[in-house]
């Protein structure tokens, strides 16, 4: 299952990478981490800054996003990749969280989605906004959850859009499995 676009091969020994320290402290012998280990790892590495740590479901989503062998675990290269992606999303979120409350408004989520390059109809954006907001506001954890799903769903869709026209065919069994795993 070839998968392009997920970063170059290892450049430089992982041991020199500061992230490796956080990762290996939790991964142990088998060099892989599960969702709850990822939760600890990210919290310790400080990706969430002053925001609340990620909840377990969001961590499960993040593992699934990069889980090519369907093992439900993540290796170090994927962790690095995730780190970069999370940094980008956090930057976007922070730029909208002007009052530092840890939440952004529904409208701001829609702007953020567009600024990340997703061109969606007002209805689709509204649907997403409703799904992720609590009392009209979106927390960082939910924002990341939304971004992960958008990215994963877009990847899945693209793989089935063989003519590159923005249309894809799904068989029922495939649709169920793709959607349920996200």
């Amino acid at each position: 299952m070839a998968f392009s676009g997920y970063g170059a091969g290892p450049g430089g020994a992982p041991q020199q990478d500061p992230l490796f320290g956080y990762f290996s402290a939790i991964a142990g012998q088998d060099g892989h981490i599960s969702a709850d280990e990822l939760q600890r790892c990210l919290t310790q590495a400080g990706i969430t800054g002053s925001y609340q740590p990620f909840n377990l479901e969001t961590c499960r989503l993040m593992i699934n996003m990069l889980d090519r062998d369907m093992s439900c675990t993540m290796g170090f290269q994927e962790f690095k990749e995730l780190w970069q992606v999370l940094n980008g999303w956090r930057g976007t979120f922070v730029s909208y969280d002007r009052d530092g409350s840890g939440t952004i408004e529904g409208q701001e989520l829609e702007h953020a989605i567009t600024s990340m390059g997703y061109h969606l109809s007002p209805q689709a954006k509204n649907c997403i906004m409703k799904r992720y907001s609590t009392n009209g506001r979106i927390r960082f954890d939910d924002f990341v959850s939304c971004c992960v799903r958008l990215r994963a769903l877009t990847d899945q869709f693209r793989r089935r859009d063989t003519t590159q026209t923005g249309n894809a065919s799904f068989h029922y069994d495939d649709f169920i499995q793709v959607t349920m795993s996200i």
Partner: protein
Amino acid sequence: MACHSPYRAAPHMNAPPDQGFLWNIFQRVDKDRSGVISDSELQQALSNAMFDRENKGGVNFNEFAGVWKYITDWQNIFRTYDRDNSGFIDRNELKQALTGFGYRLSDQFYITLIEKFDRQRKGQVAFDDFIQCCIVLQRLTDVFRRYDTDQDGWIQVSYEQYLSMVFNVV
């Protein structure tokens, strides 16, 4: 390539349960004793929109009585597949249950399903997790069916339709 119509096992016509028994169950779920079972108490396992007639954000005792039949239907199904009576359904039992409902899903996928729905982190699904899993499957099937106008098991959708379909359910 049809054959994608999963169905719940036909509910049995039980005699109405004893009110005292029902009240005990109700009280156990209504943890803050408000007389109303809130969304967080009932958890996602039950679709409140189905039972909360007055849109209060919860169900009172009378509405809960209506929920009871729904719960017992699911309980019967769960018990059928919880063959070792452990109170949990393991991967094999889940596969049998869902295959029995008509789903055709890969073995690998059941690993993902357990991972997703196993809230107690036991590698197996408890009763409420099982209900949630089945409800999500049902809702995805419903949304798929709406787009599958010729009922051949295939849909063709635009990127936006796809995102809307999924974000409405999961």
